[in-house]
């Protein structure tokens, strides 16, 4: 059974990875299994705040590292510096609250696993069955 699960996960990974270096994950409460690139970008820029069932989205990010930079470049279309500036502007003009940050992928994975509505990203080797994998369409 484990081999089947592992095989399924690896198969999914080959579908959902941007350039093979991160996977988008969500809490089990999230009904979506497919998401558009535009929606991913809007979620992490604070423009999309609810899932299709109306529940609140809780986006979380990493503080740094290759996975974080790759995610921003590929999914959010911004450099780390541009992304930081975007959210600093929101903070200091009162127009938004930035995503919660985590020091490492393990901490992010644990948070997403236990927090309803949460969405994040980790590298492929971090995935476990406590979270949903969200594919891009």
């Amino acid at each position, binding site marked *: 059974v484990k081999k089947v699960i592992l095989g399924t996960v690896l198969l999914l990974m080959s579908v959902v990875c941007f350039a093979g270096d991160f996977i988008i994950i969500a809490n089990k409460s999230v009904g979506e299994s497919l998401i558009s690139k535009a929606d991913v970008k809007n979620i992490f820029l604070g423009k999309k705040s609810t899932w299709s069932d109306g529940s609140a989205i809780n986006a979380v990010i990493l503080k740094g590292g290759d996975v974080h930079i790759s995610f921003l470049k590929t999914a959010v279309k911004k450099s780390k510096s541009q992304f930081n500036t975007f959210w600093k502007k929101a903070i*200091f003009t009162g127009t938004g609250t930035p995503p919660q940050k985590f020091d490492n992928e393990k901490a992010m994975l644990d948070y997403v696993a236990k927090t309803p509505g949460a969405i994040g990203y980790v590298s492929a080797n971090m995935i476990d069955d406590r979270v949903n994998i969200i594919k891009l369409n």
Partner: protein
Amino acid sequence: MKNTNIFLIIVLMLVSFLNANSMLDNLRINGFVSQGYIYSQENDYLVKGSQGGSSELNELGFTLSKQLSPKLRVGFQLLSRDYGELGNNETKLDWAFADYRWKDYLGFRFGKVKTPLGLYNEGRDVDMLRPTVFLPQSVYDEAYRSYLVAYQGVGLYGSLPLMDYGDLEYNGFLGNMNLDKEDLPMRDLLDLANGLLSSLSPDQTTYIDMLCEDFHGASIFYNSPYYFRVGYSFFNFNGNAYTPNINIQSNIDLYGVFADPTDPTTYTPIQAPIKSYGNKPFELEVKIPNRRAISFEFQYENFTLATEYLQETLQVNTDINFPVNYYLAADSAIFNTDHVKFDELYDRDDEAFYVMASYTFFEKYTLSGIYDHIELKKQKQLALDANNKPFLADMLPSVPNKLDHRTDIGLGIKYDVNFNWTIKAEYHAVDGIYRAYSDLLEGVEEDTLEKDWSYMLTKVSFNF
């Protein structure tokens, strides 16, 4: 700085108290502080004495915000700044509002909110949001900040997804505004009003205040999936400058008198110096019927290109509306008029344009270049014709070349030490002195300023 420090210490003590009592759950506490240095050549710029170098260039902000529910957020920011003659480190409430986001496509803001104008107006006071020390001054003029920076009222905003074609962001607002008497528009207005008042009431010290009860505008931006965004924004400003009741006494030329003020047929033309008396408030109407900007920003990986084109019209009208009794010198006749109106005392059109490019390399270094140009397109002012009748004269032909434009070419570098610290340095060469703050520099006449001049800036910023 003294008042600022005391105030912020009180705020920090309050925060500590609340924190100790577990009242700060989900409360975000952020802040920033920056200190700059300016050195100019040929002309002082912004700071009197900047030709010898000045460190009167700082900002200090403290921000609290709390997400009360998934849809409701509240917050405020205190700001203290010193830009030479502006700010002088008085702590002010920069913004404070409640944000109710009903849907992603429709939210509401109530309170004092940063004005959504162009690419950078909302974040103009936060140094680390931009690659350069100053934003392009043709569009984000520091001396005119008070009527650009924030509105008090209600705003609506939202983001409309366009599937794979990006999204539309919009903002609209309606409200009023507090104006800072030390800002340049107010100083210009005071000069204008006092000049007029001194001819009407030479023996009195006049006092003038200003309100803006009608300030509204909107912006819309298209965010493309192809690394660029383009937008249009505008606002309309209707303000009034006024004095309390003042006694009007003046020698004026009278064009005629009525033997019977109630009978127009009894009018007799005459031109003689007479005395006039009145006791009424004096009002000036200040309008910015057009301030509109077209904006474009392109961001690809570490490269950013931003450009904006701005048009602005400023009009100052007066409605000298006081029923005065005009007495001939011999007191032999009385002339009543209840309405003397000059349609326009002052009318000015500006056009501005800038291009700013920046490139980040080795993650921490950003090199920037700016071409920034502002030009006076029209300037009309009240004048008297040969018959002493008021008319709006075109003043543009008499404006010296150096006073009708300003072109600023700048080159700068930014070093992001880490997430919290930033260091910047830049050099600007400038041609022309239009709207170059000379009015802020007491005792400096524009005629004495050099057409070609330059300035250098450095700044260190910290944010948390």
